[in-house]
Every structure is written in C-alpha cells, then in structure tokens.
C-alpha cells in the first residue's frame, strides 16, 4: 500500500499571542546558534498612522458636531510565525547544484548535511528567506518540521510548546485529521502566493498585503476608492 502522508501546518493568527514559545522551543531542540533562527515570530504593524488627519474613512458620521475627532487611524499589530513553508514546488531544490536540498515522500523539504557545499545559492533563491548559514558548522540549515520527532510519532516541539494551540500540525491527506477539518472549514491564506511555490504552511487571518508585499498597492487603491464615495 502506498504511504499517503503529506505533512503540513496551519497557524491560526487570531489565536497567536506573540509569546515566542515556538522560537524558544526550536532553539532549545535544534541548538540553533545565536543570530539565526528556524522559526521567527514576526511582529507586523500596519495601518494608516501618518495619514490620520487627512484620510477620511467611509464610516465617518457626516452629522457629527466635530467630525475631525471621529477620524482615527486604523492600526493593527499582528504576530506572524515565519518558518519554512515546505513548498510543493521548492525553488531551493531547483537551484541546488549538488542536490543537497531534497524533498521527502511525505513532503518535508530537507538539506543533506553530508552533501551541502555551502554555496548560499538556495538562501538567495528562497522567497521566504528561511535558510541560514550555520556559523559553527558552515552548513545551510532550515526548519525541517522536527523530522526526528515526526518519524517517532510525536508532534513538533514548536506545536507542543504553543500555549494557545494556534499551531496545528498534521497529515493533509488524511481527511479526519484536525488540520484537514480546519482547512475545509476556514478561509486560509499562504505566504507569497505570487511566487507559485504552493506552500504547505497555511495561515488563518493573514492579510493579503502582509502575506505578499508586492501586492500592497491594492490597499491604497481601495482607500482612494473609499475617498471617492
């Protein structure tokens, strides 16, 4: 019987409180050196702060006595755990000159430490910038979904460390797993969809301008449309 496993991860950003527990667990488990990371909780602040006085939002009340005070900046801070996306079509595998980067049958993208020559090409080509050169060993490393724990039947350490259960890890091909049920129920997004790498790390509640910086112009476009109304 063919093994039908495709490991994936789902991160619910509505539950993430930015406690960096996943980052600490990862550093402790893999002994990641200082200055580099395999998972990083990115703090994204977005909004219309400098344009607070000029922009008029569509829900301004025109009958207020002082409409200037009704205007306020729409600010938001969100925590974005950023890790290797274990793409279905990884660019790092395409460009590696010695085939040190490879994809396992269960979809985990890995680096062979006995083959890597440290040319840094995969690091330059990765759109997610998740690879780092280990300053101690001189090897390229990245998140591998804790492959030694997953093979032993355990969950990844970052998922176990998450206090709010915002990270869900499971088999994408198994319809009864928690991640498959959440993916069928909720609206999910992926990072940098424009790169056509088909990432297998999904997010709930990720804004499009955060997920894909190249598409940020759409937000300003819509604001101008609102101003016309």
């Amino acid at each position: 019987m063919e093994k039908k496993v495709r490991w994936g991860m789902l991160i619910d950003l509505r539950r993430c409180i930015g406690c960096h527990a996943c980052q600490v667990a990862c550093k402790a488990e893999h002994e990641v050196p200082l200055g580099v990371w395999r998972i990083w909780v990115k703090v994204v602040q977005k909004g219309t702060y400098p344009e607070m006085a000029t922009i008029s939002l569509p829900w301004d009340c025109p009958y207020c006595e002082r409409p200037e005070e009704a205007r306020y900046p729409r600010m938001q801070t969100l925590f974005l755990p950023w890790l290797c996306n274990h793409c279905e079509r990884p660019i790092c595998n395409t460009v590696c000159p010695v085939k040190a980067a490879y994809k396992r049958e269960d979809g985990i993208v890995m680096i062979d430490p006995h083959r890597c020559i440290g040319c840094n090409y995969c690091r330059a080509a990765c759109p997610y910038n998740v690879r780092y050169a280990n300053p101690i060993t001189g090897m390229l490393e990245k998140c591998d979904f804790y492959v030694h724990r997953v093979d032993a039947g355990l969950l990844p350490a970052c998922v176990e460390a998450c206090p709010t259960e915002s990270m869900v890890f499971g088999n994408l091909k198994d319809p009864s797993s928690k991640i498959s049920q959440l993916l069928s129920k909720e609206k999910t997004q992926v990072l940098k969809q424009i790169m056509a790498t088909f990432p297998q790390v999904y997010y709930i509640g990720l804004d499009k301008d955060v997920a894909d910086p190249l598409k940020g112009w759409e937000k300003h476009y819509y604001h101008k449309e609102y101003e016309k109304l």
Partner: protein
Amino acid sequence: MLIAIYFHIVGLHAGCSIVSITATLLGKKEYKPVAKIGAIFVIILFSISPIFLLTDLLQPLRFWYLFIHFNPTSPLSWGTFFLCAYPTFTGIYIYFLFKNNVYWSKVFGVISLPFAISVHGYTGFVLGFAKARVLWNTAVMPSYFLCSAMISGMAFMLIVALVWYHFTYQNKPFEEREKDREIIDLLENWMAVFMILYVFYVFSDL
C-alpha cells in the same frame, strides 16, 4: 562580495576572449595584435578567477561534489562544466594563435566561442533563477550580463592597447601608427554600440 568580484573578472576575461576570437575569425592581418592582447589577458584573468569562487564556499574542501552530483535544473551545476571546458579549448586556441597557425586557431576559436559566451551567460542565469530577488529574476539577465562582459572586456583591452601603443609610439613609422589608430577607433565604435545596447537592457530590466 567575493561573488561580485568574480562576476566582474569573468566578464572581463569572457569579453576579452570573445573580442580576440572574433578578431581571429575575421582574419585580417592588422587585427592580430588585438587577438594577442586579448589572449594574454584571458590567461591572466582566468587563473585568478576560481580563487574567488572557492573562497566564497562555506565548505571549500567539498568543491569536487559539483563534479559528481549533477542537477540539470541548476545553472551553477552547468556552470561547473562550462568552467572546465572553456579553459581547455581556449588554451588550445591561444597555443595555436601564438604559433601563428591560422587554420587550427580558427577551428579552436569556433569551438571555444560558445563556451566563452556560456561561461559568462551562466552567471546571468544564476541570478535569473533566484526567484526571491525581484531585480535579479528577469529574463533579460543573461544577455544583460553578456553585454556588460563585452563592454568591460573591450574597455580593458582598449586601456591595455593604448598604454602599449604609448610606449612603442616613438619607434614606429607613420603608416603603422595610422593602422593602430584605426584599430582603436574600430574597437571604440563597437564599444559604443554595446553601451547603447547595455542602456537598453538597463531600462528594460526596470
């Protein structure tokens, strides 16, 4: 940083060898000093360029893995074999050029011309395949690199030729001086053409 220096040096010697081989293939007698100046600098520049490649690797002792593991989708892997084939054929070409053997130098010139183009063209593909960088990931990158290689190679040869002619200026009769000036003018005109092409590529890249 080292890779940027390497790209520049590769551009210099690829441009030099393309100009040298073209001058040989055209077959006129007055182009011969151009071909020889180019050939000398191909040898000098090529012998220092692999130092930058090897020292940039984090595992320099594993460089031979590139020869035994071949990944057909990676331009770096192709470039390894271009960098091996190019000095072989160009070395034979330079040997026959200095032996004044016209027929065989033309034959090996024709063989080594595609390798001279590909040895700099692959660096353009290396940058073009890096999908994450918006300014690198363009289809014009290989031809853009080739164009800059031609410009830098020609400019380098022009400087060397001018210095050379400056020191041998007094001993020459008037007719030879005129010939030298004509060659330099020709090189300058071709360089202007490539510079216009280069500006076109810069703007089509943006």
